[in-house]
């Protein structure tokens, strides 16, 4: 029999075993292709250049993350494949085949598997591309016409990226086999020997891991200013390392300690599954750690998406407080403005407030601007009353200010304690801040400081007093007409200057945030699904070894129900531990994110944890089913 014939026969007879590998790989191809489709399609052209550019950057970033994931996934799956095949291929040594020939056989087999996955992924990816874009746009709440026109370029890019990564690992596998000793290949089948983990090493790892993890959690929650990014980066590194040591140290230590307590171990059939958990932990702890971190990133990304969407909605609401705003040096503009607006439309709400602007050279603040704006407390109180808003803070003292600013999508400054501002040499303590849109869009473009009335009057000679006039119109359809009518008032003369701000309620310039939101949801689902599939693949592979053990246990008269319970308990630990670690860690990561986004994300955190739970339960059920059917082995 020729080598190729043997390879084809192996591939055909073992296809069922490779199926999970082929399906998982084709799934990553499918996802990657769909993102490439968006990148190369003109779906988002209609949203304008700015949105299209932002979405382009988002998709490229996402593709990069997916590419990284693809590297990991292919590395992992080819590794599992290699381990399994090495055991079988080792037998060919006795038939007189050289390592090179065996390596070529492996290469041919893995290429067949990889190409099948690529073909399947590309075909299914093209088939669902329209649906994918529809779902993405539906979640993003965008109305864009979708054309079902599969183009070649995304498929070529996807194929190229996939093949480069895949070939790299396939060739690595080839060299691995070529360099393996005969003994190593034959004994690959006997690598089940349980090596008792050194207790002292476990204790060291456990202490180190717990310490590093706590440090990471602490860093995530630490208040910060300029060092927030550094803290966040540090937290990611520490939590990743900590989780790795947790599965490599603390968790096996706990299980081994429990297994030593025989009175505990011999109760309720624990002896059966706890020993298996300890045995597997030694082999699988890296997988558990990777899956935990992957799920943690997914949950955090989802929370980010939700928070962004929340901020987006708030910003839209914020900006649309008023339809038109005039900022003028004239104090008598209200009548004229009203008259001009009412020629075209009705006014449903209006307010007016004097604003003191000071030159940047007179003010020392954390953020530096060329101009700073101040309002008197009583002025703001009147404005709030006119606009039907509530003033939620008391009048500041003579050496105090209160800041009213816009909503940030994301702030890197989480430490808001003891903030001070200097005005003309006098220091004021900032008593708090609010993002209530008292001054509407004006507040979006600059921050206002609220002063004590007397202090406001005292500072008046230092700067220029302007007047902000705010109007909301009744019929937004008349927006264009009203704007034209108001434009007559705009002037920039030596005596008077008046600026007009018009907020188009139909503006879509932040639509990219909505796309980001849906991409976050999508990435979350992809990564959680992938995490589950990684665990499934690993456990499916383990189930192969479990077959023999189950056969012995059946001979010994162990009930099927007991075997099922033991398998269920063992799988529950395999899926449950990464979930638990992810759940606890996400409280910190999402909490830190919530701080940056000025919002409480606990609800999102809990819901996403529930979704993760649901997906893991699906994979758990599948693993249990495969285990009971005696399936397994890639």
């Amino acid at each position, binding site marked *: 029999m020729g080598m190729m014939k043997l390879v084809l026969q192996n591939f055909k007879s073992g296809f069922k075993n490779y199926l999970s590998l082929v399906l998982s790989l084709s799934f990553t191809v499918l996802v990657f292709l769909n993102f490439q489709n968006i990148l190369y399609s003109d779906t988002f052209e209609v949203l304008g250049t700015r949105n299209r550019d932002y979405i382009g950057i988002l998709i490229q970033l996402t593709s990069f993350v997916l590419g990284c994931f693809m590297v990991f996934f292919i590395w992992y799956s080819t590794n599992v494949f290699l381990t399994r095949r090495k055991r079988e291929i080792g037998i060919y040594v006795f038939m007189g085949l050289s390592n090179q020939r065996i390596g070529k056989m492996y290469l041919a087999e893995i290429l067949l598997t990889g190409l099948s996955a690529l073909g399947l992924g590309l075909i299914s990816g093209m088939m669902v591309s329209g649906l994918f874009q529809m779902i993405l746009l539906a979640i993003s709440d965008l109305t864009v016409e979708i054309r079902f026109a599969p183009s070649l370029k995304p498929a070529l890019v996807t194929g190229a990226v996939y093949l480069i990564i895949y070939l790299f690992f396939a060739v690595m596998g080839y060299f691995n086999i070529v360099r393996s000793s005969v003994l190593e290949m034959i004994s690959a089948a006997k690598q*089940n*020997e*349980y090596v*008792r983990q050194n207790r002292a090493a476990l204790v060291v790892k456990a202490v180190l891991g717990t310490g590093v993890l706590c440090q990471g959690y602490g860093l995530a929650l630490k208040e910060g200013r300029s060092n927030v990014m550094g803290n966040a980066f540090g937290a990611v590194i520490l939590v990743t390392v900590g989780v790795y040591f947790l599965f490599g140290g603390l968790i096996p230590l706990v299980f081994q300690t429990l*297994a030593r307590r*025989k*009175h*505990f*171990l*011999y*109760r309720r*059939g*624990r*002896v*059966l599954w706890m*020993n*298996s958990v*300890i*045995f597997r932990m030694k082999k699988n702890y890296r997988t558990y750690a990777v899956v935990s971190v992957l799920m943690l990133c997914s949950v955090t990304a989802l929370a980010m998406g939700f928070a962004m969407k929340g901020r987006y909605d708030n910003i839209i609401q914020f900006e649309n407080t008023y339809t038109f705003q005039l900022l003028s040096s004239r104090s008598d503009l209200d009548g004229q403005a009203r008259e001009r607006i009412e020629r075209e439309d009705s006014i449903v709400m209006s307010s007016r407030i004097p604003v003191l602007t000071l030159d940047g050279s007179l003010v020392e603040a954390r953020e530096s601007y060329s101009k700073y704006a101040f309002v008197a407390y009583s002025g703001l109180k009147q404005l709030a009353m006119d606009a039907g808003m509530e003033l939620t803070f008391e009048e500041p003292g003579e050496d105090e200010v209160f800041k009213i600013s816009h909503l940030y999508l994301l702030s890197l400054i989480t430490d808001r304690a003891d903030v001070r501002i200097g005005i003309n040499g006098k220091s004021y303590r900032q008593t708090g801040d609010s993002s209530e849109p008292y001054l509407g869009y004006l507040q979006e473009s600059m921050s206002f400081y609220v002063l004590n009335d007397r202090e406001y009057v005292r500072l008046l000679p230092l700067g220029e007093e302007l007047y902000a006039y705010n109007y909301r119109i009744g019929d937004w359809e008349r927006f264009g007409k009203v704007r034209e009518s108001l434009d007559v008032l705009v002037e920039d003369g030596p005596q008077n200057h008046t600026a007009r701000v018009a907020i188009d309620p139909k503006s879509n310039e932040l639509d990219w945030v909505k796309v980001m939101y849906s991409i976050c949801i999508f990435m979350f689902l992809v990564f959680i699904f992938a995490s589950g599939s990684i665990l499934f693949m690993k456990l499916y592979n383990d189930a192969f070894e479990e077959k023999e*053990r189950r056969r*012995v*246990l*059946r*001979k*010994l*008269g*162990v*009930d*099927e129900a*007991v075997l099922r319970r033991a398998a269920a308990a063992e799988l529950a630990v395999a899926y449950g531990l990464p979930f638990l670690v992810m759940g606890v860690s996400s409280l910190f990561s999402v909490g830190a994110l919530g701080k940056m986004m000025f919002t409480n994300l606990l609800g999102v955190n809990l819901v996403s944890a529930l979704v993760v739970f649901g997906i893991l339960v699906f994979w758990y059920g599948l693993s249990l089913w495969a285990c009971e059917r005696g399936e397994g082995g890639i």
Partner: protein
Amino acid sequence: MNENVVVEIKNLVKDYGAKGFQTKVLKGIDFTIQKDDFIAVMGPSGSGKTTLLNILSTIDQPTMGTVVLDGQDVTRMSNRELSRLRRDKIGFIFQDYNLLDTMTLQDNIALPLSLSGVSGRECVERVGKLAERFGLVEHLKKYPYQLSGGQKQRGATCRALITEPEIIFADEPTGALDSKAGRELLECLKGVNESHQATILMVTHDPFCASYARDVYMLSDGRMICRISRGGDRKEFYDRIIDMQTSMGGELSWG
């Protein structure tokens, strides 16, 4: 049924193969195992030894006939009942030990007891006693891969004995052991049998191994053709077994 009878086999027949192409492996076997018996079943390759053992140990079903174990006909029991019977009434010793590589020797021995719901304290005590008797105390914390073949098989024997079963079925228990380890194991089996702790049925092709039993049944072509009982001396018994083997046909493959 006599209360000393542990297993009663009547007219046991086993056919293999599709209808019209059947091979009769067992052709009507009758015999009884009494309490404290130590029986060896010998026979050439293809005589039906393993089939007989599989049926007795409830892993296989006969085509005809009955096997009454502890007063119950095992041929009419459900899978669930059979599992329970195997767990509570039968002990197994396999040629390849079949210890679970994920557990220490102590856990392997305690496993059947633990799964029967016996308290942890009692499990530990009983494992300790058996391990002492079989010289395994210092090996209890080790994993199977850290043990020699003889230690593994003695461990497997402890596991078979731990539930104090009605009968122990041993399938070529010394098949994978060197002569010294094999002898040690057989001495242990003989010891537990003589101290009324176990009734043993052992399938073997090795006359030396069979000479440790009290009775040897010769199986040939699916039939039990004779029974030899030990008198006093094991050596003399061994010679008689060899003679019988020769008279049955030295050209046959005994394995």
